[in-house]
């Protein structure tokens, strides 16, 4: 009892020869099928090269093109030959020229000898698995596909849409249930011969010859009719990417392949010398397998598909530049934006850094320069604080900043004095942004400044207008950021509660509440300052209701309510 190998070869004949010799040395008979597209010169050389092996035969050649019937026809011819010429073969293993045995062949022979009735063929119904790529799951069995997808994509697509339009459906013969799975299987003589000798074979062949990718469904479906015991998995490790293209294994996959529990892997890069040397030349090396961990291989390839299709969030780079709406987020991590806090509190930035342990910047979008934390002029990733460089592409500036500091939460100040026009929408629409605003707090800086009152008045009007527009942005239905807005008056009434909320959200658990509070600016006379602005015809309303006489942290219930702006 032995296992026979069918090899489908179309290129890299030196490697195919090497693998054939490996199988042959372990006593496995081999039927080689060479694609008819191969010219007779290389074909004859290949036949010649293998002529010294007694148990190698070449089967009738078919033209094989991906997704067409040729591959099935080739397999049928080769199987027929195998069953007829090597009577002692019990299992037939379908492999390709770019397959590489990962474990000693004797292990495979022993493994199969212990399971004489088992067919190893991945076989599932279309409704059970989401494997199919390109939209054909059921349709691959109910439409007709006479045109080549590779060579005649236009007609292929047109013919499919015409069939859909007229609601054409093929009849599935004899009520068989289409199954599909990996095209690399290992079937018993009983099952395989039953398929090949089926009286209705011509019916099935005619049906499957117009099915989409029949080599993934012909044997997978028909073996269900005859097999005594199907183990629905492939003994060949074969990974496909999101477009259904096979992953290729290279030299650097050696350790990974050693962890596979499969007997054979495909497809192998023909110039992967280390792999071929390790698994073919050196039987001791092939035995030296580490603990099988096929899950690791799955994870790596699943991650690769994820990276190719979704990419790393918040990364803009030379080969990932999503159009607007497809970014999956402008930034890669959460960050906090504070507006008005550093105006209201004298030591807000150092306090915040101390309490939360995050990186706290000043006004990143200040007109003069980006005020990085600790007075740095260049940040992680050599991001420059130059205002011109920043304003050249503020979006890229922000996403780079957050990307470069992955693992460390960033906080920065913003205000109506800053260059926010080109960035405010981006921040507002970013779900990673946590924005806290004390509206009107910019007036504190004016209040403390030593400027002429007419200049102050002008500046106040400008800042109020800018901030008002900014608040509209933050309140717009498109804003995805977590936005909190307090008027200055509201905030001063009970500053601890909002501060606590913000800190909690940043994620630093302070068990006993805030041990230390930031120092609020002395606002004595601020109410009068606002009143003066009003008297000059400029109505500051973003601060909320501010009493003319207001003493810091003192409830003002017995004072008369001041004139309300809104």
């Amino acid at each position: 009892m032995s296992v026979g190998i069918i090899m489908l070869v179309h290129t890299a004949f030196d490697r195919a020869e090497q693998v054939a010799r490996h199988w042959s040395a372990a006593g496995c008979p081999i039927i080689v099928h060479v694609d008819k597209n191969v010219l007779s010169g290389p074909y004859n050389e290949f036949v010649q090269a293998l002529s010294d092996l007694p148990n190698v035969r070449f089967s009738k050649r078919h033209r094989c093109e991906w997704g067409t019937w040729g591959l099935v026809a080739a397999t049928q011819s080769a199987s027929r030959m195998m069953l007829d010429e090597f009577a002692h073969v019990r299992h037939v293993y379908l492999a390709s020229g770019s397959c590489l045995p990962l474990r000693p062949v004797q292990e495979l022979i022993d493994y199969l000898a212990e399971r004489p009735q088992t067919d190893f063929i991945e076989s599932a119904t279309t409704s059970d698995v989401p494997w199919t790529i390109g939209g054909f799951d059921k349709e691959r069995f109910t439409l007709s596909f006479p045109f080549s997808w590779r060579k005649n994509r236009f007609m292929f697509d047109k013919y499919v849409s015409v069939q859909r339009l007229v609601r054409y459906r093929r009849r599935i013969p004899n009520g068989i249930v289409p199954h599909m799975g990996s095209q690399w299987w290992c079937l018993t003589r009983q099952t395989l011969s039953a398929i090949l000798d089926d009286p209705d074979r011509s019916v099935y062949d005619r049906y499957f010859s117009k099915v989409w990718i029949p080599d993934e469904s012909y044997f997978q479906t028909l073996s269900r009719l005859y097999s005594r015991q199907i183990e629905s998995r492939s003994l060949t490790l074969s990974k496909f990417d999101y477009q259904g293209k096979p992953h290729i294994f290279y030299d650097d996959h050696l350790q990974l392949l050693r962890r596979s529990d499969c007997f054979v892997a495909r497809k192998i890069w023909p110039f992967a010398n280390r792999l071929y040397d390790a698994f073919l030349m050196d039987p001791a090396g092939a035995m030296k397998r580490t603990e099988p961990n096929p899950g690791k291989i799955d994870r790596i390839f699943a991650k690769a598909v994820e990276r190719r299709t979704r990419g790393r969030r918040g990364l803009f780079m030379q080969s990932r530049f999503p159009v607007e709406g497809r970014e999956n987020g402008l930034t890669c991590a959460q960050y906090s934006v504070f507006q008005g806090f550093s105006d209201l509190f004298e030591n807000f930035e150092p306090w915040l850094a101390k309490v939360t342990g995050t990186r706290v910047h000043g006004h990143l979008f200040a007109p003069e320069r980006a005020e990085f934390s600790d007075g740095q002029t260049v940040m992680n990733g050599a991001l420059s604080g130059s205002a011109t460089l920043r304003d050249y592409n503020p979006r890229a500036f922000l996403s780079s900043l957050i990307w470069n500091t992955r693992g460390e939460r960033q906080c920065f100040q913003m205000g109506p004095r800053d260059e926010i026009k080109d960035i405010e929408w981006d921040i507002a629409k970013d779900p990673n942004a946590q924005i806290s605003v004390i509206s009107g707090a910019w007036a504190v800086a004016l209040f403390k400044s030593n400027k002429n009152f007419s200049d102050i008045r002008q500046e106040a009007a400008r800042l109020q207008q800018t901030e008002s527009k900014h608040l509209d942005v933050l309140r717009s239905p498109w804003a995805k950021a977590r936005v909190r807005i307090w008027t200055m008056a509201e905030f001063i009434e009970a500053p601890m509660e909002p501060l606590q909320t913000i800190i909690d959200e940043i994620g630093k658990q302070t068990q006993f509440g805030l041990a230390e509070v930031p120092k609020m600016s002395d606002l004595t006379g601020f109410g009068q300052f606002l009143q003066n602005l009003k008297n000059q015809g400029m109505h500051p309303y973003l601060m909320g209701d501010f009493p003319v006489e207001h003493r810091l942290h003192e409830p003002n219930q017995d004072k008369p309510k001041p004139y309300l702006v809104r």
Partner: protein
Amino acid sequence: MSVLSEAVFAYRLRWKRRRLLFRAFRKRRQLCLIVDRTPQISAQDVLLFSTVRNEALRLPFFLDHYRRLGVKHFLIVDNASDDGTVEFLKEQDDVSLWRTTKSYRLSRFGVDWVTWLQIRFGHGHWCLSVDADEILIYPHHQTRSLPALTNWLEQHGHESFGALMLDMYPKGPVGDTTYNPGENPFDTLSWFDGGNYVMQKKSDLQNLWIQGGVRARLFFRDRPKRAPTLGKIPLVKWNRRYAYVSSTHSLLPRRLNHVYDADGGERTSGILLHSKFLNSVVMRSSEEKQRAEHFANSKLYDDYYDALSQNPTLWCEASSELTGWRQLEAMGLMSKGNWV
């Protein structure tokens, strides 16, 4: 209407491409053949095209690196070198060499000459077009050759491969380092700017216009728009009807410029390590300023050359030190995509 104007624009670009090809055809007589080993080229070979001038210092490592990656033949145009470049290249068994003394700038920075060579020899090959100071690396480059990469690209239906040019610099003043031919320049030029790149999509050719890096940070901080372009498409499955438009930043037809994913995923991409800032750059900058051959509006770059000739320090506290391709991959400067 927009469909119509798009069609008109596509047609104009077609003529632009023809003009570029014709330009290369006219410039063919500027090239004087020195050594012709092109009969060695066989059908599957990856070819490298380059224009060089006084690069005797860099070429030994350059050739070694690309031979290691699996480049089979080098087709090089020498632009009036006088430092032994020609003699050195003549002795290499896998180099075919042409020589010209005509203007580099008027040949669109050597592109016209190279385009002519690509028309003649590049058709059907994967062609690398790089300068002598550009060293291509890509994910797994130590274990997977260029043919492995190109085979994989082809399998996925890609005809071109993008790479970001990464300016490498030493720690300390640029002119204070030493370099001998054949050494790995990135032993000393081991620092780079890791995360200050800005990019926008060009609406005409649909390529990404990438700027930033150390030169933007130091020399173009007041006029970032003028900062050098860093996005390149150096590796293309060539057809004799293709043409580079400006340096190797963009090509026609436009589909070759789509080396990035616009739907949020990551395409596989590489890095061109730029060895411009060897100590020789300090000496050469004043010469280049005189020659005015490197930029279309050379006058605008005088400050840049002046700054370079004063032996500046490009390094800063926030610079990153190169440890390998995996680092560049993790930093998001290039991507494996799904080539794992």
